[in-house]
């Protein structure tokens, strides 16, 4: 186990190294940041000075070495727009993004798990068929459309929930921060549902397919003939086996969730990393884009790492190599 973890750890480092190289190469091929930083009437001398200041006068591999060195020190340079450390800007907005991701993951599991297990264990029933039909609509809906329909229904027409923004944890008179207030919940609800819907539909389909396949295996038939109760068969024998494939895909889909926060945060004006990424893309704020890619890559690599470990906990037959 320890050897496996160490090996996977070095693999993680390797992947992050490759990502940093790709990011560096891609960003150095595109546009010269000098012209974005200086006014259009800058003299040649000013341009040359700026190039030296940014280290752009050195050969590419030296630039990469410096880039890598700075990354390891946690220094990604300052945002061109805010003139503050780019890493700080991203980290400041991370809690907001994680809040939506967490709430929508909870929603996803609460809804998809029971529905998926039901659909998978009674695949021929009407209930299962309507669940599957619903999930097919769910995976056909673009997530921005979900968000807009929710806004139109609950905010514009009914006026029940706020259209956008996040309620920041307030500090009460006693100096304590108030978390999870009703107001906060009202704000986080629509973005989370928007983010969760596609995931719910996907998880239901995965669980159903996995369970349905497992229910036809010989060991299930054996358990049936032994007289094990239906409940026990589904929850004791089948579900565990069906979960292995589901967990891999679901682990990866947390990555998708983070990707789709860019859309959700844009629609709901949610002050998270995704919205910062988009505004930075629009103004070519390269340091911020690079930090975002690196931070998100670290998150994905870590998620994959834990999914692999979780895998072996659920299914001990999988050898660690």
């Amino acid at each position: 186990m320890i050897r496996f973890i160490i090996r996977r750890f070095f693999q993680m480092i390797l992947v992050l190294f490759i990502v940093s190289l790709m990011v560096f190469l891609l960003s150095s091929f595109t546009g010269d940041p000098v012209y974005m930083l200086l006014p259009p009437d800058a003299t040649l001398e000013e341009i040359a000075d700026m190039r030296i200041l940014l280290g752009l006068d050195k050969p590419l591999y030296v630039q990469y070495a410096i880039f890598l060195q700075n990354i390891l020190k946690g220094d990604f340079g300052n945002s061109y727009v805010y003139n503050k450390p780019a890493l700080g800007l991203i980290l400041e907005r991370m809690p907001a993004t994680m809040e939506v991701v967490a709430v929508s993951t909870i929603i996803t599991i609460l809804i998809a798990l029971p529905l998926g297990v039901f659909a998978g264990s009674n695949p021929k029933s009407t209930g299962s068929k309507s669940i599957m039909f619903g999930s097919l609509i769910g995976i056909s809906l673009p997530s921005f459309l979900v968000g807009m329909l929710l806004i139109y229904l609950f905010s514009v027409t009914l006026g029940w929930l706020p259209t956008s923004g996040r309620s920041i944890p307030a500090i009460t008179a006693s100096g304590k921060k108030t978390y999870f207030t009703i107001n906060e919940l009202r704000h986080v609800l629509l973005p989370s549902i928007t983010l969760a819907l596609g995931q719910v539909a996907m998880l239901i389909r995965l669980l159903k397919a996995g369970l349905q396949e497992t229910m036809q295996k010989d060991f299930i038939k054996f358990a049936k003939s032994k007289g094990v109760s239906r409940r026990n068969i589904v929850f004791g024998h089948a579900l565990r086996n069906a979960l292995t494939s589901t967990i891999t895909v679901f682990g990866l889909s947390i990555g998708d969730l983070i990707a789709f926060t860019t859309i959700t945060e844009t629609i709901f004006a949610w002050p998270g990393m995704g919205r910062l990424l988009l505004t930075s893309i629009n103004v070519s704020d390269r340091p911020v884009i690079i930090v975002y890619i690196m931070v998100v890559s670290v998150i994905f690599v870590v998620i994959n790492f834990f999914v692999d470990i979780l895998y072996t906990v659920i299914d001990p037959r999988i050898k660690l190599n």
Partner: protein
Amino acid sequence: MKRFFESEFFYNYRKSFSAVFGSVIIFLALVIGLIGPFVVPQNPYDQKQTDLSNAYLPPMWEEEGRAEFPLGTDGQGRDMLSVIVYGSRISLLIGISVTVISCVIGTFLGVFAGYKGGKTDSFIMRVADIQLSFPSMLIALFIMAIFGSGIEKLIVTLSFVGWVMFARTIRGETLSVKNQEYIQAAHVLGYSDWRILFRHVLPNVTTPLIVLFTNKIGNVILTEASLSFLGVGVPVTQPSLGLLVKNGFDVLFSGLWWVSLLPGLYIMLLVFGINLLGDFLKDELNPQLN
């Protein structure tokens, strides 16, 4: 052909309401995309045909709607029906061409990796694994952010992230096919590797390919729509359905719902039709689940 119409597959297809319904949607969408521009009331991107004074008219069934603009108009006074038809052409063009390109590249690499084995195999699959550990939409978003919007760029980018699923599936299928006796027989007959690959291996891995292909089109259309919605997909001059939704988003809060929600619903209907057919094909061509 006669054999196809008498097959069990075709029988099940006719009996399946959702599969036929899905095919009808796909067929109609293709027809609309092909001949739509000749039928719709106006070319929305010809400024001589649009009139700013017609801006934001609601669909004809609403109180102030007019029959000449059945689905209302947008902020430039363009007829929404025409705008959606033009936009759907771009969405379909990108969806289909990206799927074809990633299918060709992915299948080639997958068959090659599975058949060759060894270092080639582990290299291709390692690349695929690393790429797969990042959400494809995010990779596409980064690349488009760096290179800027454009239809060709979008097609290249989405194909670049799309080949992986094809390669993985086809490689798995190839592995299970390559040790079959008929392949060994072909080896014994002294056929070249390429001939075995294309004449003997490839035809036997096409079933999962069909399923994957169908589902991928819907998937690509959704990804393209999302990227265009974020403003990093198609250029403003050639709006796809996703960009139309983005353009109408700002006025949604003032209750002008048709400008953004109608193109959005069209995307949903289109992808739903593709998924209905894809779902049927998956169940039908995957004998494990019967």
